[in-house]
């Protein structure tokens, strides 16, 4: 089912292709937990991070090393000096000569697609500016599948839905599964109309509110995101908003028993540490699931038998 050469944008994925990634990730999970493997022995993954994202980089590095492969790294300092001089096209042509695949994170939108046009080896997009971050979406879907259920899902996406492209990409992918989506955000951070239209055109039911209390008792998944202080010119307004989107154990009193709470991390104040010990918290599992999901993608793209 998986015939891609690159992983650039969720828009490139059909539901069947997503399913095949999630299934393989499931079977690789023991290796992510430490079982020995040499599935990618002799393979080299190049990590080109033109802006820092330590977690994502370490997650890819872990995935590669746990499967017996090696990594070469372009540190953020070298990254920023290169981005001033040499073209990205030249950089990926050179690094593509050293490695079996390239992971790229770059501040400009569309840079991963550009890299894929010049790279002699597969390219994985680890975030291009405000653009796409498909491995995050895939690990979110894997988390939902493992810890809740992708079919007939009722999910609330909470926080900054205007600028947070992670949620745009997740909402798009969930629409392939017919999820029931509730968008919860302050008025000024609502999801752009174009994306909402896209979702409803796919037959997805989309509700919108700014009151988290209204929905908390009726969803299977609560997907929290960070609301950045910079989005609010008025600090008083910011703290008011931040308070009303903060999850505490008391807040969860009426929630469904099997409700799970997700967050792409790092969190600031959106989720009280007291929630960590409840049966609802899944954000640390979610972060761990990035490893088997990235393992699955790497195996599909560069594992023997993938050609």
């Amino acid at each position, binding site marked *: 089912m998986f015939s891609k050469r690159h992983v650039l944008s969720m828009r490139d994925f059909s539901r069947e292709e997503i399913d095949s990634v999630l299934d393989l990730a499931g079977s690789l999970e023991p290796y992510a937990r430490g079982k020995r493997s040499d599935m990618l022995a002799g393979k080299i993954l190049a990590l080109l991070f033109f802006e820092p994202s330590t977690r994502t980089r370490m997650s890819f590095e872990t995935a590669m090393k746990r499967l017996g492969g090696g990594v070469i790294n372009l540190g953020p300092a070298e990254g920023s000096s290169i981005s001033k001089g040499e*073209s990205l096209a030249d950089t990926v042509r050179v690094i593509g000569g050293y490695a079996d695949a390239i992971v790229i994170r770059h501040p*400009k*939108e*569309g840079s991963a697609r*550009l890299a894929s*046009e010049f790279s002699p080896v597969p390219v994985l997009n680890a975030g291009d500016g405000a653009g796409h971050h498909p491995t995050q979406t895939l690990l979110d879907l894997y988390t939902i599948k493992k810890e809740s259920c992708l079919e007939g899902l009722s999910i609330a996406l909470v926080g900054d839905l205007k600028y947070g492209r992670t949620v745009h990409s997740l909402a798009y992918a969930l629409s392939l599964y017919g999820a029931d989506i509730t968008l919860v955000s302050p008025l000024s951070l609502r999801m752009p109309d174009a994306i909402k239209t896209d979702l409803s055109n796919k037959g997805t039911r989309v509700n919108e509110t700014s009151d988290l209390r209204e929905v908390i008792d009726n969803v299977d998944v609560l997907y929290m995101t960070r609301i950045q202080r910079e989005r609010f010119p008025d600090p008083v307004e910011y703290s008011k908003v931040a308070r009303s989107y903060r999850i505490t154990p008391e807040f969860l009193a009426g929630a469904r028993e099997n409700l799970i709470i997700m967050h792409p991390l790092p969190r600031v104040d959106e989720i009280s540490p007291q929630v960590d010990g409840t049966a609802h918290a899944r954000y640390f599992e979610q972060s761990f699931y990035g490893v088997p999901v990235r393992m699955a993608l790497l195996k599909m793209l560069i594992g023997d038998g993938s050609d």
Partner: protein
Amino acid sequence: MAVTEVELRVKPIESGTVIDHIAGGQALNVLKILGISGTTEATLSVVMNVESKKLGRKDIVKVENRELKEEEVNKIALIAPAATINIIRDFKVVEKRNVDLPDEIVGVVKCQNPSCISNTTEPIRPRMIVKGKNPVLLRCTYCEQPLADRIADYLI
């Protein structure tokens, strides 16, 4: 011999291409899309803002001794969707057709997203996928940002 004003404006050409029914005021943008600049050696007539039953005001472009190919002409549907193309030989219209936007447009329109990698010095040409023809809706191949309004402002 006295020539009337109308004759001066719409003097027939012996051979070449006449692009008619261009929305009023868009003729220069049409030339831009066709890659015809001020330094061209082609004999060229541009008539702007003449009355038209269909469009109110229309522009006409005539390029002499050059038969424009379908794929070069189709791109002008971006800003002149009602344009008609007449190929002239020996003062006669030998071919008449409408313009039809292709599925992909390369190197004609730039992305409106300032953070897009296509708006840098990378060795690529801006590329747009045509998502809708009427009204025109483009999507940048790189950053996936849509472009629907004021397309003429983004001509390269």
